[in-house]
Structure formats: structure tokens, C-alpha cells
């Protein structure tokens, strides 16, 4: 089958035969096409913005958001926060740098999240461009619509995480790569190098997508690549990456990077092997995955380099992060745009599947694809809508949203306990949140004294008894989220509170749904004052 037969409904609508008056007809046709195109993309973008903004700041930061915003505040020289949060941690600073530009006008969690949302919405638009480029306007719109309402992307881009920016740039890179494959103009290959560099600067793990690029060029024999252009592209990529090592070296901090690498390489797994299998498909949408895979199978006769490109873009991160001991909910987000495009392709090219009676089949396929697409989008929207509502379970999975009560506890600390006071929490996660909102130094009791077993950013408290006895730590903070993860350190903290005359001075509660369905106030954060 000729690829021209793969036109979508809209393409056929927008490419009607020219009327008699060529000039007027072209104008009218263009005008109508442009209006329809604009209306459709505007609708998708509005949906993307709406889902990402709805109740955006009703719950405060989680630990990663607090850390990245803290870094940005440190770069922007925000008082107190610059002394609490180090500029350098594990990751490059492109997003933090961008956020710091905004933080120069004042540090605010809402500002940070708005920037994350803007990046998420931009990604939806790039997915639209990518889908349109590969499979036509309709596929692009549908892919963008899937991304706009996909719970995985919605959840992550409502948070101040590096994965959102990384996916923006990785999707841009994918688009540039597709553009090169289409035209084979070297300038697009050079641009791919720039895109990869930006992806790395957003989050260093994005570098693994080089594997996808390599596999694509190696296995898509129809794409010609000149070594000279590839080399130049690599040079440009390296040049783009330079700010990360450069700023480290200029600060004499190359050791810091080394420490993080060692820690990442040797740290113990934080989740079981089936973590991604149980969390990610649901977040992406089971239907999306099924439709994308079905498309690959049913439309296999039409498969070209496009599918190779998208499949490798999915396979490489999945395999890598499945093997990598450290797992995170949001780590597989770069595969989402490729899946969305593949699903969009399937739904808009349904008519290409083994037509028996051409006219009937075409009509039916439109209805079927519309029905399946509608169910899928509604399902994604419903799950996203559910996801962005405040949690009522009192539990928390890193990367899935804010931590209820954390901001309120931090703000209470800022207003009610003396400046320069020091806190001890169960783990560093709550410590980060309280540091950002409370403007007070906090340590996690679970941070290992063994440098190989801890994030180099975290300082351990080797002898909690001693530091409380010398009154270097004056407050203990227990939280249900950390306690659930580590009963041992929870008990240890409570034992310290009992030993050192701990007195509850503040409790943060959230409304949770109990087993019998009633709503009860569950204490999630308890602050103790201690003294020898």
C-alpha cells in the first residue's frame, strides 16, 4: 500500500480539490484549514494547561521538588535557603538555572510549579509536531491529546522535577531526528546533537537515549549518515553538555560529581524488579500501550524507519532503567511521547488494516477509531482527574505528587520556632521539605554514616543521643510517610523523643478515608521539642 493511503480524515478534509477561482479558493481553503488546525491544537493545549493547573498548589512540595527549588533558591542567592541548600547535587542545573531566573523576583513554590507546567505544555506541543511530521496532522493532534491527558505526564509535569524538562528536550531531539531522517539534511543531524545536549543538561540520565539514536542509525539501513556530520553532531552535543562539568571544575568540585557517580553505581536497589511493571503502564494508560503495540503489529506491512525510531526510543530507556538498581516512578517518562505517537498513528491509520470492502471499511474504521480513541482519552482524562485530586490515603509514592501537610508543617516551623534551630527527621525526604518551607536545617536519622550508602548531599548524624544531649538538635519531627517506609527509624526517633523529654508542640493532620469510608483526620507530621 502506498503511504498516501494512510492519510487521516483531516488530511482528506483539508486537501479538497481546488475550486475554479484558484486564488480565492486557495485563500479560503487555507483559511479554513488554518482555523480548524488552530482550533484543534488550541483545544488540546487548553486541555493540557487545564489539567496541569487545576489545584496545582493545593499540596506543598515533595522532597525532590524541595531539593530542586532549594538549589534554584541557592543559585538566586535567596537568604537563608542559600546556606541550607547546596548548589551542586547529582544533576546538571539547566532547570534550576531557569528557575533561579524567576526566583530572583522571590522564592515561591507556585512559581516553580508554573514553570514545570509550562514545560509540560510545551512538550505536548512538540509531540503534536512530532506526530504531524511522522504520520500527519491527525496523528499529531491525537498524540498531543494523549499526552495532554496522560496521567503519567500530567502528574510529573505538575511537579518541580527534572524529568519534565528532560522529556521536553528528548522529545525535541526525537523530532529533530525524524526531521533529519525525512530530509537527510546535515543541519538537522547537527540539531540532534544540540537536542541531546539539552536533554543531558536537563537531567543527565537523558544521555542513555544516545543508545536509541545509535540503534536507530545502525538498524535503519534506509537512513544515510555521513560520519563527518555525525562527528560534528557529537561535538555539538559535547559542547552543549559542557556547562555541567565546567561549573563543577571552576568551583573545584569535580570530586562532588565523582562521589555521586560512585553512590549511584553502588547504591542498593530502592524498589523491587517489578516496580515499573506495576506502576508505569497504569500511569501511561493500558489502552495507550495496547493500541500502540497493536498498531505496530497490525500495520507491520507499512512499518518504516519511523517505527524503528519510536520503538528504539522506547526500548532503550525501558531496558536500561529495568537493569539500573535505582528506580523512580518518573524515570520512564521519555517513552511516553513515542507511545503517544504510535497510538495516534494506529487510531488515525485504522483504515489501512486489510480492507475487505473499501468504502464500508473506511466508514467503519472511522467510527471504530473514534470510539476507541474516545474511550481511551476519556479513560486517561478520568485517571488524570483522579490523580490530581488531593490524596486521602495518608501514604505517598515518590514522584507522584506533593506531600500533604509538609508545606504547612514547614511554614509552622518558620513562624514558631527560633531561627537557627535544628531539626531531626526520620529520613532526608521530610528533612528537605522542612528545610525549604521552614528555613531551618534538618537532618535525617536514617542517613547512613557509611559514605557508600548515602546520597553525598546528606550529612549523617552519627550520634543522635549526643547531639540532643548537647542541644545541637532541639526538635524531632515524625512523619507517617517516612514511618511507613522505615518502621525501624521511626521507632528510633520516637525513642529519642521519649528519652529527651519530648513534648508535642505541633501536629499536622490530613483528612483520609478510613476503611469504613468515613473521613478522619490522620496525624501525618508530629513535631516534638526535646532537651537534655
Amino acid at each position, binding site marked *: 500500500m502506498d*503511504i*498516501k493511503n*494512510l492519510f487521516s480524515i483531516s*488530511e482528506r478534509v483539508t*486537501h479538497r480539490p481546488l475550486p475554479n477561482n484558484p486564488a480565492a479558493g486557495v485563500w479560503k481553503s487555507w483559511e479554513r484549514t488554518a482555523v480548524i488546525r488552530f482550533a484543534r491544537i488550541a483545544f488540546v493545549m487548553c486541555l493540557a494547561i487545564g489539567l496541569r493547573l487545576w489545584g496545582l498548589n493545593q499540596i506543598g512540595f515533595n522532597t525532590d521538588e524541595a531539593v530542586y527549588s532549594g538549589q534554584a533558591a541557592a*543559585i538566586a*542567592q535567596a537568604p537563608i535557603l542559600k546556606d541550607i541548600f*547546596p*548548589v*551542586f547535587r547529582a544533576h546538571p*542545573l*539547566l532547570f534550576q*538555572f531557569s528557575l533561579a531566573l524567576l526566583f530572583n523576583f522571590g522564592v515561591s513554590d507556585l512559581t516553580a510549579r508554573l514553570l514545570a507546567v509550562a514545560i509540560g505544555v510545551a512538550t505536548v506541543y512538540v509531540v503534536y509536531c512530532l506526530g*504531524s*511530521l*511522522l*504520520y*500527519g496532522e491527525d496523528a499529531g493532534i491525537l498524540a498531543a491529546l494523549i499526552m495532554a491527558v496522560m496521567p503519567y505526564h500530567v502528574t510529573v509535569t505538575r511537579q518541580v522535577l527534572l524529568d519534565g524538562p528532560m522529556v521536553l528536550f528528548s522529545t525535541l531531539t526525537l523530532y*529533530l531526528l525524524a*526531521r533529519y531522517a*525525512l*530530509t*537527510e*539534511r546535515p*543541519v*538537522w543531524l*547537527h*540539531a540532534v546533537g*544540540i537536542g541531546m*545536549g*539539552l536533554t543531558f*543538561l536537563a537531567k543527565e540520565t537523558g544521555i542513555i537515549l544516545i543508545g536509541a539514536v545509535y540503534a536507530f542509525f545502525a538498524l535503519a539501513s534506509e537512513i*544515510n549518515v555521513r560520519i563527518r556530520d555525525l562527528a560534528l553532531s557529537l561535538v555539538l552535543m559535547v*559542547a*552543549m553538555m*559542557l*556547562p555541567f562539568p*565546567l*561549573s563543577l571544575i*571552576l*568551583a*573545584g*568540585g569535580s*570530586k*562532588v560529581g565523582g562521589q555521586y557517580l560512585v553512590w549511584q553505581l553502588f547504591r542498593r536497589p530502592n524498589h523491587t524488579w517489578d516496580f515499573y511493571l506495576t506502576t508505569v503502564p497504569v500511569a501511561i494508560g493500558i489502552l495507550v500501550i495496547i493500541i500502540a503495540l497493536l498498531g505496530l503489529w497490525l500495520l507491520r506491512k507499512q512499518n*518504516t524507519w519511523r517505527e524503528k525510531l519510536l520503538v528504539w526510543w522506547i526500548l532503550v530507556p525501558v531496558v536500561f532503567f529495568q537493569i539500573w538498581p535505582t528506580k523512580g516512578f518518573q524515570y520512564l517518562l521519555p517513552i511516553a511521547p513515542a507511545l503517544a505517537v504510535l497510538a495516534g498513528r494506529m487510531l488515525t491509520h485504522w483504515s489501512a488494516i486489510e480492507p475487505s470492502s473499501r468504502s464500508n471499511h473506511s466508514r467503519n474504521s472511522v467510527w471504530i477509531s473514534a470510539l476507541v480513541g474516545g474511550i481511551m482519552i476519556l479513560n486517561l482524562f478520568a485517571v488524570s482527574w483522579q490523580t490530581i485530586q488531593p490524596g486521602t490515603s495518608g501514604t505517598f509514592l515518590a514522584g507522584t505528587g506533593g506531600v500533604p501537610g509538609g508545606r504547612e508543617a514547614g511554614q509552622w516551623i518558620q513562624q514558631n*520556632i*527560633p*531561627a*537557627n*534551630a*535544628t531539626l531531626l527527621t526520620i529520613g532526608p525526604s521530610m528533612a528537605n521539605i522542612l528545610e525549604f518551607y521552614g528555613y531551618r536545617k534538618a537532618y535525617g536519622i536514617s542517613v547512613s554514616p557509611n559514605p557508600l550508602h548515602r546520597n553525598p548531599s546528606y550529612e549523617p548524624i552519627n550520634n543522635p543521643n549526643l547531639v540532643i544531649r*548537647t*542541644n*545541637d538538635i*532541639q526538635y524531632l519531627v515524625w512523619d507517617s510517610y517516612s514511618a511507613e517506609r522505615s518502621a525501624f527509624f521511626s521507632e528510633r526517633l520516637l525513642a529519642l523523643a521519649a528519652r529527651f*523529654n519530648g513534648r508535642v508542640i505541633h501536629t499536622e493532620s490530613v483528612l483520609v478515608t478510613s476503611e469504613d469510608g468515613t473521613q478522619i483526620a490522620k496525624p501525618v507530621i508530629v513535631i516534638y*521539642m526535646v*532537651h*537534655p
Partner: protein
Amino acid sequence: MMFLKKITPLFFLFTLLLSTSHVGSVSASRFAGETSTPIEHLVVVMQQNHTFDNYFGTYPEANGIPANTCLAVSLSNGPDTPCISPFNIGSYPVTDLSHSASTFQAQYQNGKMNGFVGALNKLNQDGKLTMAYFDDRDIPFYWNLADQYVLFDNYFSSAHTGSIMNRMFSITGQSGGEENRIPVEGFVDIPTIFDRLQERGISWKYYIRDYNPEFNYRALRELDYLPPQIQWVPLLSMDRFLDDPELSSHIVDFSEYYTDLQNGTLPAVSYVLLLGATEHPVSDPQLGQITTRTMIQTLMQSDVWKSSALLITFDDWGGWYDHVSPPQVDKYGYGFRVPAMLVSAYARQGYIDHTQLDHTSLLKFIESNWDIEPLAQRDAQANNLTSAFDFSSAPRDPVFISALREVPEARLEPRRVVIYIAYGSAMLFALIILLRAHRKDNLQSLPRPMDLSEETRPS
């Protein structure tokens, strides 16, 4: 009836006059507990045995050790006598230097202040040690405290002898006897500030760390040593404070200081003896710093911070060098200067107070603040602590004072400009390359996706 009608207005007039005169008498004398300043709680922590020069002799802007100070090693003080200059104590072993009345006189040298080394050498002690001083390396918390609150550099011990007499002055305004010792029959009929507070119904407590209620002056008959608690708490040598539960119940263990702060029951006046952490040589000053820091921080955490003042001072000089000749106001003193610091929400910030003070200035402040008559001539004539306060400003918010003097080692961080330039340049560079790619690519010639077939791609 006519008579009744005539006297009724007179009765009312009389009643009115009576009630007016009653109001007048109440307003003339303040209600018990009412204060003349915003300070409703005073905490006095009396530590031991250091001079001002010993702790703050090198503190900037204070009346510290003069340049070129060098004290002769013997009391003969001839022109060829070697001399010892002040030096940082570092790891020099601290010993308990003689600080008796006779040692004072030998060191005082009738105001010449040049017998410090020689007096100790004469007693076969290491006289050199008297010239040692602590600085911010050794007592960082106290120096930080002085930076943020008030340091008194003209505060003298009340008596030129040891702890007992100085502590008597601090609660009675009197020496309690001719010698620095506890009489066999205890201190009899000497009114204390606590008697006055009790009479007025103003709350007070004497907190003693590791308090042992069994130890008082009566136990000395059976003991072959003088327990520090008895030596340093004169109330334990006064019968009424031992036998009258109304009074003795106010002498409590130090742990109650924290519970009182938690419960909002901190008394109006508190005296504190930190047994085991009084900094009395050979005790390590760190112990005193840790405990006083905890006390101050807990006070800051409490509801009474904005109505409290905490004063840290030292009972006597402990044999250490100080360069200021103490004024002799009577036959008992003053003794040499001792360190003193005031912490309060109303204390002036980073202020060195040069007002001449001694332990009876504490009594002066209590008496003026709670409207109490002076106990004795000393406290009647003493200067008040009020110059250290600024009651015209709003109370300061509590800020914990670091126990470290040094600025923490600078974190390994780039100058922010490096980050801005590096990442800003990268973004700009990316933008240029992408725009260039867009411009270079002839969009008109770019086949639309639907027109693309594998054959139409340029080879």
C-alpha cells in the same frame, strides 16, 4: 428622721472619700508581681572562678588585656625579674588556682595589679597559668552570645575572696561574716532577696543541678568534706530555708527549670547553680557552655521569652589575671572583675556595657523591677542593670546562637555568575543552531508528511 436625712449625704461623702483613699494606696504601691519593666522573669546563672580578662580579655572593643602586658614571676618585682605575658590557654592544663582573700591581696598589690603570677608561684602553684586566657577558639558560644546580646566589661565580684561571701552578696547584699566560710550555726537573721519575694507573694526558685535535699550545713558535722552544693547555695545554711516548707519547697532540682518553662510556670526570679558544669577549674568550660546554651535555647522556645532576662555571671575570679583594679567600696570588696552576659529579648544587640556593676546589681534590678526595699547598703548603692536593656524597641525574636565560632568551611560552590554564564550561553547557542537549521532548511521544498514516501526522500 430629720437627723437621718441630714446624715445620709454625709455618710455617702464619707464612703466616697474612703473608697478614693483606698484606690490611692493601691496605685502608689504596685500589685505583687507587677514589674516596672517588661521583664517579668529574671534567671541568674552564677558560674565560677574566671575573670573578665580570662574569658574576654581579647574580645574586640571591650576593656581587655592592655598591650605589652607582662607580669613578674615573683612578688619582689625587681627590674630584672622575668615576666609572663598573656597567652592563649590552648591545651595548657587547667588547675584550680588559689583564690583566697590572702591571694587576692598578694595579686592586687594595693591596686598595682602586678602580683598575679608571683602570688601563685609563692604558693608553689604554676603562676604562669594565671596569665592564660580563653578566646573564641575555646569558648565560642560565650563569644557568640556577646556578639548578639550584652557583655558587661565593668562587672566586679562583690568580695575579694571566694565563692561563699560572693554568693552571700548576690542574695543578701551583705558578706555574711568576716570570713569566706559557713558559720557553724549557719547564717542567722540575714534577710535575703527570697524572703522579700516571699513576703510580697512574688514567685521564686533556686534551681540546683543534681540537687540532694539531704545536703545542708547541718550535715557538715558528720561530713569530712564540704559538698559543693552547701558551699555554693547559702540558703542551705539558713535554718528557715531548711525547716519552713513554704521556703524550702522553692529549692528544687534543675530539671524543674525545663518543666517550668514547658508548663509556663517559670518563677519571677530564679537563681541557678549548675553543679558539675560551673566551669570551676579543673572543670571544662565546654560543660558550662553546653548547659547554659541549652538553658537559653529552651527559654527562647518558651512562651516567656519576650518577658525574660537571663544573666550569666561568675562568683569570683578564681586566681586568674585581670588588669582592672577593683574599686574598694568597703572592707570586703569589690573583688576582681568577672565575666557577665545578659540575654533577653530586650537586651541591646552586640552591646558592651561599661556600667560599674557587681553581684548586688542583680539585687538592685530585682528590687527596682518588683518594687522591693533594698536589703542592705551595698545593693542600695549599686548601679542597676537597666542600661543593658532597650525597652523602647520591640522585643527581639529568638535566634539560636551557634556553638561554633568559626564560620563553617565554605561549601564547594561556583560563583553564581559561572552558572548563569555557562547555562545561559548553552541555551543561547542551542537557540542559534536550531534557528539556523530551521532557516537553512527550505521549508517549501520539505515534503509534507503525507507526500512522503521512502522514494521521495532525497538520496
